[in-house]
């Protein structure tokens, strides 16, 4: 019954009866994420169909499972598409059927059969204070990380804990928690921070690896520039209000109801680099600022200790309200001009990131 020939995505898809439409939806999301023209979707699809289902080993250390929960919220690719057709998720505590010895055997077998080729995903920090602070199958996190990383093609550190230490490493860091990069230094590591990261950002990075066989371009904090290249503030729909000096003073005043800038309520959007304001969350429904709460800065290293969360940032322009107010009063309407300029920039960016839908694709010859 078992036909190893079906060991790539294309044939698996055909045999599984997955619709071309579903598959192209996945490719289209990828194209949109990378701002590629719609015409490239065909090439992505061709590359993906030839690729064998990559083996993925997911290790969970000092974590809260929020990153796994976020993974399951991805709309494209979907979690069921990933686990059935696009990857072979060979070890993942929250989702896998096997437990105990059988689970550990699955990990060993995947490491052996795919040596040098499998992708290692880690969520959670690693405690160095004492090996007994976190163990799996009686093995310390640091030992298991080293063991699995050795044969991995690359490591993706998902979530701020794995990327930068996160909440366990917040002061006073009681367990000596460190990020993946403090333990592994001989493998390519992609940091995908966020508490948790945006669902489609996790799967988007995975899709990049599956499609292009390598890792995306990273910023100086090891994050993919494609998702972490701009600040929340620069892409925020409330940015024009900041420029005009219009701020919510509390959580349900007129400004809050009108969607004015949350700067004075402690929003960390100006110093936070992530895609929340552009991809948004949960199929584009909202993001924290659109639902009335300032950005906590969760994709930045050390954000837990940069608070308090409700204290306004001290910005280079110390009194933004006054500055904007003076500009407006002077009749120069500098604030408004800034807002217009910003809108222009946003429109251009928006055009570059125009989503490619399945409907668009089907219109093409």
């Amino acid at each position, binding site marked *: 019954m078992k036909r190893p020939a079906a060991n790539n995505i294309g044939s*698996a898809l055909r045999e599984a009866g997955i619709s071309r439409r579903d598959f192209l939806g996945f490719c289209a999301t990828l194209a949109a994420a990378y701002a590629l023209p719609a015409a490239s979707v065909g090439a992505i699809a061709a590359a993906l169909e030839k690729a064998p289902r990559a083996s993925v080993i997911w290790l969970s250390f000092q974590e809260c499972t929020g990153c796994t929960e976020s993974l399951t919220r991805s709309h494209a690719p979907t979690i069921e598409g990933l686990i059935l057709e696009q990857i072979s998720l060979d070890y993942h505590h929250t989702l896998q059927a096997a437990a105990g010895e059988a689970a550990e055997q699955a990990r060993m077998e*995947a490491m052996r059969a795919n040596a040098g080729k499998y992708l290692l995903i880690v969520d959670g920090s690693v405690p160095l204070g004492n090996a007994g602070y976190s163990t799996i199958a009686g093995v310390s996190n640091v030992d298991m990380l080293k063991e699995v990383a050795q044969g991995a093609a690359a490591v993706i550190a998902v979530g701020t804990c794995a990327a930068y230490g996160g*909440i366990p490493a917040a002061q006073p860091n009681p367990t000596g928690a460190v990020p993946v990069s403090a333990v592994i230094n001989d493998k390519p590591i992609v940091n995908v921070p966020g508490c948790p990261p945006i669902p489609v950002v996790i799967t988007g990075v995975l899709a990049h690896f599956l499609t292009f066989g390598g890792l995306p371009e990273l910023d100086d904090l090891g994050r993919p520039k494609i998702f972490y290249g701009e600040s929340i503030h620069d892409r925020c729909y409330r940015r024009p209000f900041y420029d005009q000096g219009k701020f919510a003073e509390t959580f349900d005043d007129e400004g809050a109801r009108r969607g004015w800038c949350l700067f004075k309520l402690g929003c960390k959007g100006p110093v936070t680099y992530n895609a929340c304001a552009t991809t948004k969350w949960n199929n584009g429904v909202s993001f924290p600022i659109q639902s009335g*709460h300032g950005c906590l800065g969760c994709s930045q290293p050390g954000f837990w200790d940069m608070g308090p969360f409700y204290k306004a940032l001290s910005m280079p322009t110390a009194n933004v309200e006054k500055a904007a107010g003076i500009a407006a009063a002077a009749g120069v309407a500098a604030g408004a001009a800034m807002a217009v300029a910003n809108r222009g920039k946003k429109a251009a960016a928006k055009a570059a990131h125009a989503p490619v839908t399945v409907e668009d694709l089907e219109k093409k010859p």
Partner: protein
Amino acid sequence: MSERLVIDPVTRIEGHLRIEAQLQDGAIAEAWSAGTMVRGIELILRGRDPRDAWAFAQRICGVCTVVHAVASVRAVENALKVTIPPNAELIRNLMIGAQYIHDHVMHFYHLHALDWVDVVSALKADPKATSTLAQSIGSHPQSSPGYFADVQKRLKGLVDTGRLGIFQNGYWGHPAYRLPPEANLMAVAHYLEALAWQRDVVALHAILGGKNPHPNFVVGGAPIAISIYPEHQGQGKGPHYRGGQGGTTLDVVGLERIQAVIASMKSFVDQVYVPDTLAIAGFYKDWFKQGEGLGNFLSYGDLPGKGIDDPSGFLFPRGAILNRDLSSLHEVDLDADDQIQEYVAHSWYDYADGKDKGRHPYRGETNIDYTGPQPPYRHLPVEQAYSWIKSPRWKGRAMEVGPLARVLTLYAKGHAQTKELVDMALKKLDLPVTALFSTMGRTAARTLETKILADAMQGWYDQFVANIKAGDVSTFNEALWEPSSWPRHAQGVGFVEAPRGGLAHWVVIDDGKVANYQAVVPSTWNAGPRDPQGQPGAYEAALKGHAVHDAKQPLEVLRTIHSFDPCIACAVHLTDDNDDAFAARVL
């Protein structure tokens, strides 16, 4: 013959759990439950702004992504005597309710189902017979032969590659799997459907809290203002909508979307989850006779209708049940020093006045003191400390918390809908009330309370819309927002009935900062180790006596452990003040 069984990692749960059991002639004589990871979040909370605490506490768990944040803001509000507007109460109820429904469905299909459902057997099913089965038990529209044939084809595509991914090394073909192939195929189809459903229904959290997992909350109400100005309507629309000037997600479009989520939740629960639970339970009636454990049950109560300080308005009542006796519901006081206490006799913590005394959370302390074996290790020294989880006790007794405790409390109180649902289920399965005290009883209770919540959601939503229409758009009370308005010393408790059971956070605030923070969470109650008297925790008690067919495939153990829906990151996070260290710090 005696043999030590070790299951580590226990998978399809949240967090890091290890079970060790002594097998005597193929049955479990003794079992030990161990949490194997610690972070120390309470220690990290010390000295912080109490208004920030919810965000830290929320990261105790990303599965229970709402409840720790709510417990935290309630604790601070209780300490500072902050009342919140009725709309904020309704928003929190909607978010808690949505968390339950989402979480219980995912638990059933994605964490628990594979204990009962043989995925590989589904390949042998006849899609037409599967369709007939599905249509005989429920009214779910997706039930045609073609639909099940497609799912089967998709599954076959995976199995034929010889690389099963998450299904690799499952215990497929184990004789304890008793569903016919058609029921297995139906369950696999619903496993996949539930994955798609769950990512859509979290839209409710995204609208009201900005994102899921980890939506936002605020001390004093809800952070989301209601977008009431006509020119701002429609900001929430469309998956790729980039937003424009003005407004919040909570506008006309956002409200409509919340209504759609509530309808989707209700139909999935009514048409898929409840019928599937009853159908699967019908094949495993022997699991209504084992896995009970303690027989003591505790609920804090929640889902206020008249404010959090008035338990008479709670949908889920407060109370304790002892020794299965449903005729008397005992009063529970979360502030009383002699009621809830935590012990560390078998935990990797130390107390200043010795490991054998209990401590109420207001004066709780936890000093990390790892005395276990250095990894890699094969066995834990269970006669000494063996877990990062503490042992909470109510008046000295080990208690079970969770869906079964709540359903029994509702039943004992004579809640009409609960009685109706429980009696319907028992009648359908031809079982006595005592069948509830079991592994499958726990699983069924979870399903039935989901139905109660799915129905309650509409009421909260309708009330919320009625308030807005009547001109009440208040969502936040700013009166005590500034720390200058707080007393120098305050303490409070915030409680939530979380999906996994009674959850409470205790906070002590001195000079505007968190001086002590303690969380006693559902899985601390259920997964905790033995106490100084040797009384086992709920998991440990429930496993006693289980026959294990094959020690290498401990399916029976997983069934009972999963029936509790373990959440170990929640249970293990406890690192907090000892008084001396605190004194040193403030000096």
